[in-house]
């Protein structure tokens, strides 16, 4: 541990230091007041605080210093916690020496700090929400109800996302569509929400408060304003296509809506299967449409909008079970995923809510659920999908309720993770319904020549190797990032974590924001989660967005780069290295010759310093992190007092 007394005494000996103190809890009220009093009393014009990370309290102390009349950027924080006491606890003596050195370096830098001012910038009081699942819907409603405008973009023909495909939701067994569709219609009717479905974000430029977004509205070949959603076209259409909403268990037509409660209730023509687009024939939908809404000549449209903030809510996908070959997905129609099972119990699914084996159409006499398919598996995704256990408990309970006592229901698991409110009670409910939990995962699932499905699983708790011959096998697949996540991350310069989901600014303290100002995250695009957590995160992201934009202006930190135009040679190296696309080249007419000069777009600049380092003629300086300031610290670290030369 650091000997603070010694560090303080040593600080007193440094040139130009007029007062040095140590105090526990300097960030508290009395501590801050002590600093203010000292500034006034001693006519101080630079302050060095040696304490924890600047990420903790730099803002706090800047305000303290400002209250005492000093420019808040004439403050230097020296980190004695993360840089010393947290990492050098085995050698207190050396740790104290290091602390003294760091303080000395801080003083040398403080000497060279310059006063800076924050800048105010006006912002658009509107938000773009990308993704029309429950996360996007919730965020859009909260933002719109707070008085800001919303543009909600959804790539599929209807909003609703995965939640619209579910049957009942855990642990209340609320009907998913029943709790979702009122929100969907609210979105459609909300005067502040502009809903763009069958549309994708094509490009984004600008900066926080002033984003310019181009959205591509794909061609539905159906006029949205004319279509009444009557559905006659679909009854006449001769083409049957495997139904993505039913996870391949059912079929739809080439002109379709994804489900009956679609919002907007507008049909879409699937160009890849429509006979007119494939062979130039048919057009029977057009013939029968009384609203004259079919338009085969329709072209994609580009819509440009200006928004102040962006909420990303692009959701997640189900893991592809065929990747785990030993589980034989694809070798029998009776080996299905949890989402396919969801469609079987759903009244608007392919079997009208009856649980029937896809292969035979008969009721199963036995069902086996296999957990963690594609999750907690280092060969595919190491993370736990968080919802697999609860989905299976729900499905097992529904199966018992619908099929009665005579069906055998088994759950092969590693653990049962029922962590949320009401979840443990839900687990007990399942156990009380004679659903058998087996503590073990099968090594493989075998499909015999006559279609019989058999698996062997070792139950750790009874030490028995059990053979289960099951009519239906449900693979509890985990969630993976939506395939468009990568595209979105590149468009918005938002990173992804190693698991592929979008990266939050801080996993504990800032789970709804990204490191890009004005861009927020909601829902499963940031990581797999259930509906309560999704809605909580979406409302939180909405609040952050509203908080940012409601006043109509924001303040920008002045810790940005600035180009000395006289020195700039127009080489464009800085433009090339900037990770935030914050450097633009301007053409200047100087003495009759056209010269390129670099200009830093302040609102985009994050002050990372790459341009400063890369510039071959040293034409760029980053305010508050100039070369001179940093080199002063370096010299102070290595040179003795007599060797230091101060300008």
């Amino acid at each position, binding site marked *: 541990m650091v000997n603070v007394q010694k560090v303080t005494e040593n600080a007193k000996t440094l040139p130009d230091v007029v007062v040095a103190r140590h105090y526990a809890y300097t960030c508290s009220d009395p501590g801050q007041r002590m600093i203010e009093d000292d500034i006034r009393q001693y006519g101080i014009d630079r302050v060095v605080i040696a304490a924890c990370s600047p990420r903790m309290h730099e803002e706090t102390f800047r305000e303290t210093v400002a209250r005492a009349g000093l420019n808040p950027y004439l403050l230097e924080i020296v980190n004695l916690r993360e840089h010393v006491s947290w990492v050098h606890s085995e050698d207190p003596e050396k740790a104290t020496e290091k602390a003294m050195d760091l303080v000395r370096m801080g003083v040398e830098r403080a000497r060279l700090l310059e006063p800076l001012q924050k800048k105010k910038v006006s912002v658009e009081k509107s938000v773009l929400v990308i993704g029309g699942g429950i996360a996007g819907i919730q965020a859009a409603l909260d933002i719109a109800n707070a008085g800001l405008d919303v543009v909600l973009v959804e790539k599929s023909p209807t909003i609703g996302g995965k939640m619209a495909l579910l049957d009942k939701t855990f642990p209340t067994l609320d009907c998913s569509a029943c709790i979702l569709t009122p929100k969907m219609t609210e979105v459609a009717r909300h005067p502040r929400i502009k809903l763009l479905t069958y549309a994708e974000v094509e490009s984004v430029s600008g900066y926080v408060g002033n984003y310019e977004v181009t959205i591509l509205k794909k061609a539905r070949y159906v006029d949205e304003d004319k279509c009444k959603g009557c559905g006659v076209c679909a009854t006449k259409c001769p083409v049957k296509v495997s139904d993505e909403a039913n996870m391949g268990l059912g079929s739809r037509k080439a002109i379709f809506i994804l489900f009956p409660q679609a919002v907007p209730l507008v049909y879409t023509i699937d160009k890849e299967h429509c006979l007119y687009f494939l062979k130039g024939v048919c057009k029977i939908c057009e013939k029968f449409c009384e609203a004259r809404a079919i338009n085969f000549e329709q072209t994609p449209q580009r819509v440009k909008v200006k928004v102040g903030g962006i909420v990303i809510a692009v959701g997640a996908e189900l893991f592809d079970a065929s990747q785990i070959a030993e589980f034989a997905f694809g070798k029998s129609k009776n080996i299905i995923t949890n989402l396919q099972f969801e469609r079987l119990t759903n009244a608007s699914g392919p079997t009208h809510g009856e649980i029937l084996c896809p292969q035979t159409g008969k009721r199963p006499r036995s069902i086996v659920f296999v957990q963690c398919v594609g999750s907690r598996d280092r060969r595919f995704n190491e993370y736990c999908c968080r919802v697999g256990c609860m989905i299976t408990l729900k499905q097992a309970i529904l199966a018992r309720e619908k099929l009665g006592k005579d069906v055998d229901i088994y759950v092969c698991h590693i653990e049962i993770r029922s962590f949320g409110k009401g979840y443990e009670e839900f687990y007990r409910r399942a156990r009380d319904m004679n659903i058998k939990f087996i503590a073990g*995962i099968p090594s493989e699932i075998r499909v015999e020549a006559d279609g019989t499905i058999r698996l062997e699983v070792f139950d750790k708790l009874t030490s028995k190797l059990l053979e289960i011959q099951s009519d239906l096998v449900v693979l509890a697949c985990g969630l993976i990032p939506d395939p468009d996540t990568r595209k979105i991350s590149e468009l918005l310069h938002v990173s992804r974590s190693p698991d592929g989901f979008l990266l939050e600014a801080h996993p504990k303290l800032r789970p709804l924001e990204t490191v890009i100002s004005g861009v927020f995250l909601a829902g499963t695009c940031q990581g797999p989660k259930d509906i309560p957590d999704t809605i909580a995160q979406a409302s939180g992201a909405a609040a952050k967005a509203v908080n940012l934009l409601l006043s109509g202006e924001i303040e920008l930190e002045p810790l940005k780069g600035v180009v000395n135009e006289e020195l700039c040679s127009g080489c464009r190296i800085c433009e090339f290295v900037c990770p935030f696309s914050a450097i633009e080249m301007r053409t200047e007419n100087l003495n009759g010759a056209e010269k390129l000069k670099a200009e830093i777009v302040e609102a985009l600049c994050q002050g990372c310093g790459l341009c400063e380092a890369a510039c071959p003629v040293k034409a760029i300086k980053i305010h508050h992190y100039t070369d001179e300031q940093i080199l002063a610290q370096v010299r102070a670290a290595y040179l003795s007092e007599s060797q230091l030369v101060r300008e």
Partner: protein
Amino acid sequence: MSLTDLMSMAKPNSEMRERTLAKIGKREFADCFQCAKCTSGCTAFKLLELKPHEVMRLVNLGFTGELISSEISWTCVTCLKCMERCPQQASPYYVIMALRNLTIEQGGKVPEAYLNAVSQILETGFMQAVQKVTAKNMETLDRQKLGLPNIKNSAKTFKATFLKALEEREV
């Protein structure tokens, strides 16, 4: 040592745990989270009751002694199914081989055939002696009669280096 197995009154042996770890090139057996997928598909389970997941857990806890005295490590068929399908990419197969090595180091019971094989390697470089075979017509044949080339035996230096290698205790 704070832990005791109340059935056998045995205490875990952390030194043996470390030695096992060293023998598998430090590939962590603690990664095993006991899903028992390996045992569910273990070729040797039905006939010989080998439970790879149990081996992993016992080794991690330090109960190598009971594993060595039970002689269970010799029941592994080396089919490698456990290694292939493990969601933690752990390898019960390597741990079981390490237990075999430890058994020999500790002077535990070893099936004779393995020791004979090693002696044979020291003598001829192969794990068994060159054999004569009987054809369907009852004729006895050997390599020469079958027109196969002579075996080119390994250099004398092989034996000495092999003996040296046998003294290494880690992988």
